[in-house]
């Protein structure tokens, strides 16, 4: 899914999705719930006190196991 598609699905500017991905902006609860609904994921998956590991490292670990 592209940033533009996700942005349209949750009703924000595509640039805002970029800010969220980089961790430069923390979404409101409402926006987080909308994003979680798009991915059918729990909203807790969007928040963490620790920085999320890079996606490439996560995929590599999954591939190894």
């Amino acid at each position, binding site marked *: 899914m*592209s*940033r*533009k598609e996700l942005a349209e699905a949750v*009703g*924000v*500017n*595509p*640039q*805002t999705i*970029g*800010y969220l991905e*980089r961790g*430069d*902006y923390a*979404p*409101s609860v*409402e*926006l987080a719930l909308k994003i979680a609904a798009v991915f059918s994921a729990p909203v807790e998956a969007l928040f963490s006190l620790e920085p999320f590991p890079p996606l490439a490292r996560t995929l590599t670990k999954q591939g190894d196991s």
Partner: protein
Amino acid sequence: MFVRSAKRPFGRSLSPATARGLVIALYALYPIGCVLQLIADETATGDALRIAGLSLVVAAFAAFAVLAGSSLQRQTQEPEAVLDERELADRNRAAYQAHSVFAGIVLLSLIYLMLRQDLSDNRNLDLWTPATGDHWNAIFWGAVMLAMTLPAAFLAFRKSHPDEDMEE
């Protein structure tokens, strides 16, 4: 003030370097141009200084015109319903910073005028004050441009600029 064109209803997207350059050009060239014109009457090379000053002021107005049609200016002027929550948060922060700076400039100007009057009355020391219509004209239009563009200037100098991230 945001100048919306039919071609770019969301304003012209500026790269961070361009936006910051325009802001610096606007805030530097305008006062320098005005000062050059101010001192033109007192020097032998008056005409050259006057032309140079006028050129700088025109360049500053050109920078203002580009900023007035930019997406940064749009973000500072659009109704709330049109912006998303991140854009509103950024705008509120920029508006707060711009208000603080503008209020500070007004306060410093008043302090200068008060000190100038005091020094003039008690120590016979004459500091410059605006006296002619041209002086007030320059100050007025400078204040207008500053008031209109200061929030956009703070947005332009954000750590990460929205327009840096156009990949989708």
